[in-house]
Structures are given as C-alpha cells and as structure tokens.
C-alpha cells in the first residue's frame, strides 16, 4: 500500500500541495485527475521522492525518505512526462538502462529488452536512434524501459509499483488503449499503478480508483462511478460536464457540453 499523510509541497515559496492524504493499493490502477495546475504532477513527484515534502509517504510500510535510491529503484519505476535525451543512444541502449539489480543479472537479461519493446508495440526498433523516433514512439520506448525496471509485478510477496505521469498524452487512440491495458495488466498481476491522467473517459474505462484534485487538495476519491458525477466534475473543472452511462457493460462516460 502506498500512503501519504498530511502532504505539503512548496515550490518557489508557493504552496502547491496543501496537506493532502492519498492512498493507493497494490493490485489496483489508481488514477490522479484534476484541472491544470491542481498539483497532480507535484503529487506524483512527491510520492516518488523526486521533490522534498513535509508530511509522510509510506510505501508498503517503509518511510520513503529513509529509502536508499538503489533500493527504491528495485521497488518502483517512474515514467516522467518529458525527457529530452542528451546523446544519440539507440533504442536498445535506452531500454537497457531499465535493467537494474537482480533483473540485470538474470539469465534472461539479454532477451528482456526485446520483450519489453514488443509489449509496447515497438518490435524491431532496437537499432533505431532514439532521437529519431516520433514523440509517441519515444514515450512508448521509455515505457518499455520503465516496465523492464519492474518486470515482475510481485517479487518475494512484495508488490512493485509503476508511477506514470500522463502516459498516454502523446499517443494515438490505439496506443492509448494498449498502454492503459498494460497498466491494468500490471495491476491485475499484483503490482501497484499510480497514473496522472488528463483523459477522463480513459480513466473511467480503466481505473480501479480515482483521486480528483483541485487547487492542491483532494476534492473526491473512490471508484470512478462514485467520483465522476455531474456536480463534482463541473465544480473541479469549472465548466459544465455531463456524466452518462453507455448502454453495454455499465461504466460511465463524460460528455463535455458546448454551452456553459
């Protein structure tokens, strides 16, 4: 279980997170949603130890601030929003950076990068120069690297965690679904997934739990069906939104309204 208590984060003397509590469970896909500037990415950065914070973050019982980086890298992998690459590495060389710890020493290590690339639909891209890929392809190659870092969702009974910051932002609709299914599969296999999302409909379709943020606080949290109501969403995003239920299979979808 990932648990944050009374989390405060300030950047340049401005308080971005104002004392929020957050919980995510292993075996579930938890999505963080909310309008621009509500603190979604800041929350993710605090949860992954990238930003200094006041308060407490506990990952499966241990205090995040007491973890050594090399141990933490064995327990969770993080896909940031954008990463300009400095040098002309090949796709294989980039994905292979995700081979850390025990995975790097295993007998199948040589074959794993190829398999990780296949999972994100980039078979045969090993020899391409990373900088020559399109934005969406780069994002999927990074996802392959991140998947490789936590290849087994559960190790010795301990879940591993995936943190994804807008994993589908640069992707076409087909690859959006592919990446969301990957995240869902990782959670179904016992791992924990926390993803910052913009697309409410994809979130409604795939998330097990939703955390809706507004102005550095948690506005609502729970199952998508409970959080996504006309009232809550319209308040959070400051525009008229209508939540509907599609005929087959239940679930909800959100329809933006042209008139305010």
């Amino acid at each position, binding site marked *: 279980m990932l648990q944050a208590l009374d989390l405060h984060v300030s950047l340049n003397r401005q308080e971005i997170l104002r004392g929020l509590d957050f919980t995510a469970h292993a075996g579930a896909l938890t999505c963080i949603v909310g309008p621009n500037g509500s603190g979604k990415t800041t929350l993710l*950065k605090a949860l*992954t*130890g*990238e930003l200094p914070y006041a308060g407490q973050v506990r990952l499966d019982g241990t205090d995040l601030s007491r973890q050594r*980086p*090399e*141990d*933490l*890298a*064995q327990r*969770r*992998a*993080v896909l*940031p929003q954008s*990463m*300009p*690459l*400095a*040098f*002309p*590495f*090949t*796709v*294989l*060389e*980039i994905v292979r*950076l*995700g081979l*850390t*710890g025990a995975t790097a020493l295993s007998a199948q290590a040589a074959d794993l990068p190829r398999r990780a690339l296949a999972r994100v639909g980039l078979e*045969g891209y*090993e*020899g*391409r*120069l990373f900088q020559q890929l399109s934005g969406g392809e780069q994002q999927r190659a990074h996802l392959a690297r991140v998947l490789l*870092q936590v290849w087994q969702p559960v190790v010795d009974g301990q879940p591993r965690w995936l943190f994804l910051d807008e994993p589908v932002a640069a992707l076409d609709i087909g690859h959006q679904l592919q990446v969301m299914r990957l995240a869902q599969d990782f959670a179904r296999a016992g791992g924990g997934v926390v993803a910052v999302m913009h697309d409410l409909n994809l979130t409604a379709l795939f998330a097990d739990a939703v955390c809706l943020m507004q102005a550095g606080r948690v506005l609502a949290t729970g199952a998508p069906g409970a959080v996504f109501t006309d009232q809550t969403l319209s308040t959070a995003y400051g525009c008229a939104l209508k939540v509907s239920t599609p005929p087959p299979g239940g679930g909800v979808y959100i329809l933006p309204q042209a008139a305010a």
Partner: protein
Amino acid sequence: MVALRFTANPGDRAPRARLALWALGLLLLLTGAVSLAVGAAGVSLPQVLADWLSGDGVGLRERVILTDIRLPRLLTGALVGASLAVSGALMQGLFRNPLADPGLIGVSAGAGLGAICAIVLGGVLPFGGPHLVPLAAFLGGWGVTMILYRISTRAGRTSVATMLLAGIALAALAGAGQGVLIARADDAQLRDLTFWNLGSLAGTSWAKLSVAGPVMLAGLIAAPFLARALNALSLGEAAAMHLGIRVQRVKSVAVLAVAASVGAAVAISGGVGFVGIVVPHLLRLAIGPDHRFLLPASALLGAVLLIGADMVARVIVAPAELPIGIVTALAGAPVFLWLLLRKRGLVDL
C-alpha cells in the same frame, strides 16, 4: 545507418566498442614507440634495442635521451591527453551537453591564473622552486571548481545550469586577473607566460611527473566508476534518480575528478586546448555515447592525439619546438567548427 547494423544484435554497439578499445590500445603502443624514436637528437631505436639485448650495454648518450628526456615526456603527454579527454567526456555527460568542456566552466582559466600568479609574483615570494608554477596552477583550478560548486549548490542539490553560467563568469574573471598580471610582467616573464599559455611538454621531467602524474591517474581511475550513472543521467537527473543513481554523489565525484586531473594537466603542460571537446565527439560518432566505452576510449585516443601532436611540435621546426597547444588548436579548432556546422545541418558530410 551502417554503424548500427554492425552486429547480429541490432542497436547493440558494445562489440564494436570493444573492438575499438583494442584498436586504440594498439595504436597507443605504436604511437608511443614512434614517439620514443623521433626527436631532434638522432637515436636509433633498433640499434638501442640490439645493444641492450646483446648485453653490450646502451650508450650513455642514448640512455639519457631515452630515459631522462623522451620517456618522461611520453608518459606526461599520454597522461595529459588522457586526462583532458576524459575530463571533457565527464563534463559533457554531467552537463548533458556535448559542447561542455573543463575550459568552459573555468577550471582551465583558474589553473592558468594560478600559473601566471606564480610566474609574475614568484620572484617576490620567499619560497618557490621548480614546483611553484604547477602547484599554483593546480590550486587555481581547484579553487575555481570549489567556488563554482559552492555557488551552484543549494541544500545539497547542484544546479547544473547555474554551474555552467557561473563557470563562464568565473572564467572571464580569471581571464581579467590574468590580464592585470600580464600588464605588470617584465619581458622575461612575458616570454615565460606566452610559452606557458600556448602549452608545451618541453619542460617535463620525472620530478614534475611525480607530482602531477598520480593526481591525473587518480582522476582517470575514478572516471569508469561513473559510467553507468552518466548513461542514466543522459535521461535527466530525475530519471537517473528513479533508476537508482545517487545523483548528488555522482555530481560531486565527477566535479572533483575533473578539477584534480585538469588542474594537474594544466599545471604540467600549460594551455592545451580542444582535446577535451574533440576526442569524445569523434568517439561518439564511431562507437556511440555509452560511457562504459566512451570514457576508456577517450583516455586512449586523448593519449594518442597528444603524443602525436607533441611529435609534430618537436619535429616540424626542429631543432626548435612549436608549443603543443598551437598544434592541438590547429588540428582541433577546424574539427570543432566542423562538428558545430554539422550539428546545425550547414554541411552534410
């Protein structure tokens, strides 16, 4: 690209890089041997070897020229070249910028200021001796690096952008300091200054090498331990941290290694430019940017280039000598310009 299809495993340039390391190692041995044989005084290397093997004993003149003049000079050249090239590769990896160089962040300028201080003010100091100039250069480089580090580190985190900008400012400041001292120098000191500024291996001796050599060696030995971290850092500091890299420690070690080895290199050889920027660049084109191979390959090629440049400097106007910095600048500056133009897509080569 042909380069990327070199192996059965596409995208894996490691076998190609290993081959390049062997080739560079052989090239270094070859260049070293030639460098021992070439010089103003004629010494026939095969003759010396034959004398030595037959037990006749090597002539005193030959022995002095080889072991007291050419050998320390060869080793100094190799160490200086390797240090400058590896320092360049380290800085470029740390700043995630292929144009970064110890010259850029003021380490070389600080070392230069130290040396000029020693040359101009050395006469009035109650102490001194042959080690004063190298020692002052080393302290200058070290001092600039420490100031830079203090300026750009807040709460245990070093801002690379601040460091780059502060480095440029400190380099300018050190340059101004050099100017003030040069204005005060007399004619003899000016000749020393010019010679030192242009860079030369002419004054090398076992005594000087015994001071600067271990420092350069320490920097060279530390570098490979940073290779995996620098690879991860090319994705940015946050991504490297998520991959389990202790980013702050890597920055500290890299900066210290560069300060030590560049300070020592400038101390013993003066201002030798362009090695640190050209060598890693050429190698990245040949074997890719993987620092596990780039750092040792930079050491080997840097050594080869500096030994080669020193040979040219010794032979081209013999029995006089050209400062080695002129040779490296003549060869390095056009390569650097070509790399810049190529980057901007102005030339297609």
